[in-house]
């Protein structure tokens, strides 16, 4: 059963990280502006609006929690003491998860509603007022999201080993979500970018900018992971190093170096290349490769805590199959949501200006 449960957790978190990451990017993009957000605003909104679906897909994790989380067992909980009593227990775990999803979904729907409201405005001034409303929601929203995803990452991933902890974990998770989402957005834009509605608005400049952001995310991923490794490796405290020791045998000793190479080094050097970032189909291929690596990375975060520390082929199959099934449902909903609204937020007051100035080349 643990093969199924743990595989499902990896697949769930993979797709969840896109839903959540897109919500985060959407809010960042409202706050900072910049034309990189122009083409992907509506895809971001559609992806963020899949968050309620992710709550439904979270139910199996609750049902399977005894197979996933050691702290859900009496004996382990007794050993954990207060931590299990006040934090790591099923009722509070479920309650927190529901609360996270309500907050995130609420933000996604409010921002999407404002954005559509802006489409109906007929003067620049009223469009600016809507943009101001988006910013007013996004500022506090980003703050709340950062806090909730930190606790969500502790609940869902870090507590797989309830004794282990790392204070950078929340930030690592945020970085992973953003990376996965930017990669997904590049692919989406490369697919819908030549549709009629997008003609003349989306150019190589947008891909170049998104490619730079993807590169930044790859670098951040490397930076956060190196920081965690270097600090734990140098400190050499048994309660912390156990996490890395578990990933040094049973086949995992090949996955770690492979991640450094394929999740960091190769995409890093590819994305340094300026002309590569400007070609939609090539950058989309790099982005797709990075999404695969995201799945591998999540597998590496989750799976060594199970099956006696050996890579389980069953779990690999379960992960791939469930990622495929969840993906089919998720993408179905995503494209339905995407097609129900105009593809471009043409009434955005700041973006119009950018489109005039930078359009065409």
């Amino acid at each position, binding site marked *: 059963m643990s093969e199924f449960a743990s595989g499902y957790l990896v697949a769930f978190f993979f797709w969840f990280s896109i839903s959540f990451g897109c919500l985060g990017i959407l809010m960042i993009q409202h706050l900072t502006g*910049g034309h990189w957000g122009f083409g992907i605003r509506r895809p971001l909104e559609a992806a963020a609006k899949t968050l309620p679906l992710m709550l439904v897909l979270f139910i199996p994790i609750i049902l399977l929690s005894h197979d996933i989380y050691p702290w859900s067992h009496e004996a382990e909980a007794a050993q*954990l*003491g*207060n*931590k299990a009593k006040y*934090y790591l227990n099923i009722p509070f775990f479920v309650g927190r998860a529901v609360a996270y999803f309500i907050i995130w979904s609420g933000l996604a729907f409010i921002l999407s509603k404002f954005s559509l409201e802006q489409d109906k405005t007929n003067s*620049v*001034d009223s469009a*600016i007022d809507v943009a*101001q409303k988006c910013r007013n929601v996004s*500022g506090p929203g980003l*703050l709340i999201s*950062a*806090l909730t995803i*930190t606790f969500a990452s*502790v609940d869902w991933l870090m507590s797989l080993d309830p*004794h282990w*902890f*790392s*204070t*950078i*974990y*929340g*930030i690592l998770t945020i970085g992973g979500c953003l990376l996965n989402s930017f990669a997904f957005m590049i692919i989406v834009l490369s697919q819908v970018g030549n549709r009629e509605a997008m003609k003349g608005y989306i150019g190589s400049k947008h891909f170049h900018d998104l490619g*730079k952001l993807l590169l930044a995310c790859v*670098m951040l991923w490397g*930076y*956060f992971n190196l*920081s*965690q490794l*270097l*600090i*734990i490796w*140098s*400190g*050499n*405290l048994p*309660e912390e190093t156990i996490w890395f020791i578990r990933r040094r045998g049973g086949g995992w000793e090949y996955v770690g170096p492979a991640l450094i190479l394929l999740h960091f080094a190769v995409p890093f050097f590819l994305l340094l290349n300026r002309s590569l970032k400007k070609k939609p189909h090539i950058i989309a291929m790099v982005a797709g490769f990075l999404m695969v690596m995201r799945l591998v990375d999540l597998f590496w975060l989750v799976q060594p805590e199970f099956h006696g520390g050996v890579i389980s082929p069953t779990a690999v199959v379960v992960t791939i199959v469930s990622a495929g099934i969840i993906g089919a449902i998720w993408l179905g909903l995503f494209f339905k949501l995407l097609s129900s609204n105009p593809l471009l937020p043409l009434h955005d*007051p*700041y973006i119009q*200006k950018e489109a*005039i*100035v930078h*359009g*065409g*080349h």
Partner: protein
Amino acid sequence: MEANSATAHQHQEPVLKDVIPVVNPGHNFETVSDKISSIVLRERTPITLIMALGIAFLVMNLLMAALTKLLYQGVGVWGLNTPVGWGLDITTFVWWIGIGHAGTLISAILLLMGQKWRTSINRFAEAMTLFAVACAAIFPLFHTGRPWFAAYWLLPIPNTMALWPQFRSPLMWDVFAISTYGSVSLLFWYVGLIPDLGTMRDRAKNQIVKMIYGMLSMGWRGEARHWARYETIYNLLAGLATPLVVSVHTIVSFDFAVSVIPGWHTTIFPPYFVAGAIFSGFAMVLTLLLPARYLFNLHDFVTMRHIENMAKVMLVTGLMVFYGYNMEAFFGWYCGNEYEFYMIYNRMTGPYWWVYWLLIFCNGVAPQVLWIKKVRQNVYILWGITIIVNIGMWFERFIIVVTSLHRDFMPSVWGMYAPTIWEWMLYAGTIGMFIFLMILFVRALPMIPMFEIKTLLPQSKVRHKE
């Protein structure tokens, strides 16, 4: 669409009611050069500035006195003792290095992100970086006790014992990080200055002044191919400086984090230190820029847009830092390790409790008023907030350095630390030195990059080839 792009630019600026321009309208190439270079070449030094220079000079002398005493008598004049072996010196070192981060951040990261508002403030902030790094370097150098040996110990120079520095130690990483950061920041600043030094040369009337600027500009003449290479390198330097600036405070955080001391050994330290550095750096830029803007009447180039944006960066990075405090507290409880828990409990309720809560107030609570637009646009309140943040960030480093050390694992080695007068003098002296150097800078060099401001003017736009 192409043919009209130049006109489109002229129309675009005032259309949006909530967008404040980065350069106030009405300027042309000549007025930009004139306004900025006159501050150095034509105008008399404002009397307030001369007085400030005098005061800064006097304060700087405290540094000389403190260092003389230290070298004459030894590090015993400081309040350091077991268990607190790092005190005000390392606290202030980290504080200065943090302040030194805004310069490169504004110059490099904002350049890469295409943020045009960086242009008016980047050179000022870069100069600040250089002087802050110079102030910072004093502390660890003199902490070694015998700074004249420092080069011999710290750099990989072959010696009679055939020993090499210990490269697994974060203190060695620090040596490389700080010296790289200092050198690359100086390079970036100087490369950014070259074309403007040419302008200064051409506008100076005094022959000697002309010659000095001429030598510094290396004979820059603004040829198209030179500009092309120049722009390529400037952007690449920005690309290199961006991870560099992150790495520097990361490595400073490693000084603490790779040890096993509760309160130091925590994986969130790298990003949390970097955020804190940017936070304090932007606070210091505003602390200095707001008076300079008033004194030299720079309202056309340092507009409300710059000020508000910097306030926003402060708010965001302040929240990141506050996130760090909360994570430390949460994981202090969650980890279930009694030493970790005691560390955070001791910070909140131990003998230094008031420093901890002041820090929470200064960095966590006070900056929250920046959510309000009116506050961000009120230079007086904003200036007050920047002072509070500067103080708060100093307290943060004090909390990290001192409270983590003063209660060791065994109560038998618990102790207290209070800085002596010589440490306070040293700290005050570096502030004097910093302000002294900043004043010399604004009097000797164009504090706003003229050629970059010109590229922001609508008349600088050129049609693309058909």
